[in-house]
């Protein structure tokens, strides 16, 4: 394969790494602003216009802080973990049609690859927590692993619903199928698409370890969870990785459920529309952070195993039946 200049620009600038990282910083700013508004505060205000440079200031500051590896910690894992933490979601984001038409890397089965990368990210959390040689970090990573056992099943099952509706396992193909159909899958086969979306949203919150499923990094109970021993550069990379994860889940939601018939054929509007949809999904998740309290880890497990998993199985079966009948 010969790389053309266009491919290189797509990979490195738009919609590639440079754009994705900027978007990740922007999403963190948006997240903090939305939560602040919900709590009747201003949120970041002083770094740049309306505080928009705040995540970048945090990142640069953390890069310059002292680097501490605790005695007894596994230095190799603590170094490799944060780097992979950024690399994995960046890789997964290449499979998502950020420009509203087609992903940079598009193949049949990219949805499965993304789901696999999501599991790897959680395994990485487990590794970092374990390598930190700290009780709080170990406890946080154990909770993270426990939580993974509960949300990963409904996440995969509901992600298959749009794939069934589109008849394809490629994310770009699923997004295009909604354009051809004329309906976003959110409103397709009502109410199955909507239920599937809600389950996917809940599982995304758990995957991102965001409120109400932030028991793995509950700062009121276990210091900072699995991130407790990370300093300086490691923490900066992990935070960036979490923001990229956030971007990944929001853009997954946009591509799986929020396609529309008009924009994908227009050259400039397509990326703009897709990014707006991604921001809307991220906004919903940020709003949830301001609204609800935290589940204990056993409550989260109970919620998923008693309600969410049966619902996701039901939606999957019902979608298949509805498609057969239609």
């Amino acid at each position, binding site marked *: 394969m010969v790389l053309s200049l266009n491919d290189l620009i797509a990979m490195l600038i738009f919609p590639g790494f440079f754009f994705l990282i900027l978007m990740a910083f922007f999403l963190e700013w948006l997240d*903090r602003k939305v939560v*602040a508004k919900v*709590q*009747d*505060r*201003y*949120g*970041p*205000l*002083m*770094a740049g216009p309306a*505080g928009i*440079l*705040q995540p*970048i*200031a*945090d*990142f*640069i*500051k953390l890069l*310059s*802080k*002292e*680097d*501490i590896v605790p005695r007894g910690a596994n230095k190799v894992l603590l170094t490799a973990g944060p780097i992979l933490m950024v690399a994995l979601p960046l890789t997964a984001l290449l499979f998502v049609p950020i420009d509203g038409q087609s992903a940079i890397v598009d193949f049949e089965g990219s949805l499965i690859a993304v789901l696999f990368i999501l599991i790897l990210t959680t395994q990485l959390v487990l590794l970092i927590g374990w390598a930190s040689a700290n009780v*709080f970090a170990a406890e946080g990573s154990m909770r993270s692993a426990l939580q993974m056992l509960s949300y990963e099943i409904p996440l995969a099952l509901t992600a298959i619903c749009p794939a069934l509706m589109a008849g394809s396992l490629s994310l770009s193909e699923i997004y295009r199928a909604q354009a051809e159909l004329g309906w976003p899958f959110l409103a397709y086969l009502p109410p199955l698409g909507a239920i599937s979306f809600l389950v996917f949203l809940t599982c995304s919150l758990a995957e991102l370890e965001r409120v109400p499923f932030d028991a793995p990094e509950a*700062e*009121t109970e276990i*210091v*900072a969870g699995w*991130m*407790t*021993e*990370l*300093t*300086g550069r490691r*923490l900066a990379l992990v935070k960036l990785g979490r923001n990229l994860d956030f971007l990944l889940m929001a853009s997954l939601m946009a591509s799986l459920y929020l396609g529309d018939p008009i924009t994908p054929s227009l050259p400039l509007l397509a990326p703009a529309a897709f990014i707006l949809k991604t921001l809307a999904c991220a906004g919903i998740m940020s709003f949830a952070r301001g609204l609800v309290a935290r589940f204990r880890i056993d409550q989260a497990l109970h919620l998923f195993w008693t309600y969410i998993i049966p619902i996701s199985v039901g939606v999957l079966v019902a979608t298949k039946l509805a498609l057969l009948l239609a």
Partner: protein
Amino acid sequence: MGLLRWARAASPWILHFNTGACNACDIEVVAALTPRFDVERFGALKVGSPRHADILVVTGPVTRESEPRLRRLYEQMPEPKLVMAVGTCAISGGVFAGCYNVRGGVINVLGKADMMVPGCPPRPEAILEGLIKLVERLRGIKKR
């Protein structure tokens, strides 16, 4: 390094530690974080782990019981780090100075306090002003 100084001054993450305060200063510190005063405007976040913090905010007289913990918390923080004593007790021991169980203020234990905010308790505005003055000084800190 203008960029680095700007970044450090724009994101002072604080770790709050109560060394034996009567809770009055703690309430005021928490008030500085919440809607009416909102210290996040200046980029400050309250973090749980000393490994993530830039500024150690101490309230209360340092008791013999909390002295080793204060020392350890301070040592666990990554450089560059600053200490802020909030309230009269944290500055000098206040009315508890000289008690059999009190070692005095932060400065008696850590040997330094980069910013002192007097008051019993200091108002949130005072804490905010202390933080901002500290941040302004942070712009000048050189990497060791």
